């Protein structure tokens, strides 16, 4: 289980011995790349098209005119710049939940690894248990509870439940056990460093790779979340981009399939996925780190 060095490969030396290249595999992989790219290529092309071109020209090539900038302009000005507010909301909700979830799981993971506790088995079964709970079983009662304390239809209704991430605490616990020696903590204690100072100045910096992984996964989970904000928010100025886009899409399909909103939904979808895909391409090894730990578990 190596979270420390996700890119590490075993013995490159025997590579030639173990790699018979086959034409079939290469052809299939090229086909696969095309297949996985296709929806994104379609979105990129479609967001450069005018409304009539969208319906009349071949969908996997450019239209008669290049309207990307017009589409972006209408995307950001439609309904008084609502899209920009959605992006801002998404950023606020996901960054604050990810920061909160990372800090909370770092503290819990450290505590479960280095202080004497019995909660570990409980934690592991919770990780598995949580994915079995149907979304409605959790979100519906939360909605009713939040309604009683007037939290429904505020950012808190989306941020607070997203702080829950038992898998992150589990991952950090494993990382602490592997890479922060007990002796180091003991030595700091002998030097009379306070427990919170030890955590803040010694443990947290050493946990950095694991923290980045946890942060990324929490960020994407809340960036992509749909069900929770769909239920909790009714004011469209509070929507994150996922809920906002589906609202525009619903409106577009009601307006007899010829609405200008189709262009907006398509361009909006492109703008919404770009930051994630870019972060994904550049921070690959942290992503893989999280998956490695998940796979071995």
């Amino acid at each position, binding site marked *: 289980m190596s979270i420390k060095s996700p890119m590490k490969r075993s013995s490159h030396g025997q590579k030639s011995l173990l790699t018979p290249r086959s034409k079939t595999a290469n052809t299939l992989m090229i086909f696969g790349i095309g297949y996985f790219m296709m929806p994104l290529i379609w979105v990129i092309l479609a967001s450069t098209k005018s409304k009539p071109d969208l319906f009349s020209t071949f969908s996997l090539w450019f239209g008669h005119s290049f309207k990307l900038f017009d589409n972006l302009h209408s995307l950001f000005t439609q309904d008084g710049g609502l899209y920009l507010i959605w992006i801002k909301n998404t950023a606020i909700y996901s960054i604050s939940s990810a920061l909160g979830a990372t800090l*909370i799981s770092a503290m*819990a993971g450290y505590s479960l690894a280095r202080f004497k506790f019995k909660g570990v088995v409980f934690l592991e079964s919770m990780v598995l248990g949580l994915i*079995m709970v149907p979304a409605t079983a959790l979100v519906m009662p939360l*909605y*009713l509870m939040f309604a009683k304390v007037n939290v429904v239809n505020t950012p808190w209704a989306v941020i607070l439940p997203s702080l829950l991430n038992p898998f992150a605490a589990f991952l950090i616990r494993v990382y602490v056990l592997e890479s922060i020696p007990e002796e180091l903590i003991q030595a700091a204690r002998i030097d009379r460093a306070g427990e919170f100072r030890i955590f803040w100045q010694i443990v947290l910096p050493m946990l950095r790779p694991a923290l980045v992984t946890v942060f990324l996964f929490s960020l994407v989970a809340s960036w992509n979340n749909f069900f929770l904000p769909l239920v909790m928010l009714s004011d469209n100025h509070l929507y994150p981009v996922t809920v906002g886009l589906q609202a525009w899409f619903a409106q577009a399909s009601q307006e007899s399939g010829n609405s200008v909103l189709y262009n907006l939904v398509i361009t909006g979808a492109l703008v919404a996925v770009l930051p994630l895909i870019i972060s994904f391409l550049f921070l690959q090894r942290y992503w893989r780190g999280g998956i490695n730990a998940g*796979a071995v578990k």
Partner: protein
Amino acid sequence: MKRRQVLIGWLFVLPFVLVVFFFLVLPLIYAGYLSSQADSLVGGQHFVGITNYIDTFKDPLFLEGLKRVAIYALISIPIMLSVSLASALTIDVIQTRLARVFRLIAFMPYAVPGVVAALMWGFLYSQQFGPIYWFAKKLGFRNLDMFDPNIFIYSISGIAFWAWTGYNMIVLYSALQGISREIYEAAIVDGASQKQIAFRIKIPAIRGAIVLTILFSLIGSMQLFTEPRILSRYTNAVTLGYTPNIYAFNLAFNQSQFNYSAAVSFALGLIVLVISYGFLLRNRRMADK
């Protein structure tokens, strides 16, 4: 000193415990309570025991949705995971630049929000401006309608395939990378072919990871919600109880039947739990043999 240590340990874990209590334990208890109540005009909320659950398991809408997600899971998971496994075995052997690009691109859909994936595929499937219908028409399938109620569930499988095949491939690939290469060398010296190595050594070695991907896919499939919900604009296939999760959502937020909705959700959770543990137990027994 010892007691102080314990206290500090608790302080560190306290925020986590609070979050778990307020946003997991409490809502579940509340949902459990709701599912044991019924609302009537005369008596208000009152205790009805397991009546709501008996109703759920007799409810044709719930059973129909359950059957649909079960068929959906049985058809899509084997296809998806076979492709994931084959790709993982391939990129484990072929370590060219092409293989690295393939690995990256196949994993990329993981970063695309489910809502956006559903929207994109809705457009791709569309008869008005989608490439799929365009190609089908060229090939002579003029009547292809991806939103036809009879085939809509397979259209959803197509979206899930695009979204999750690469993710599962990476999980399996990571497990394959964990196997010691020396084992292969010994096998090659003994004259084993790549195919034999894959089937006799690699697949048994990553059995745990395979079981995990099956389990997670199964749980995810049973809770199907986002794709049919988004695409319900295009098709009249998505009925009130199209999937159990959609049913529970409609009961709570369109019909304000919170008690019955809680029972439907719990019933689904219970079924998923029984299937998962059944699957794990069976698997463990087989592994022991």
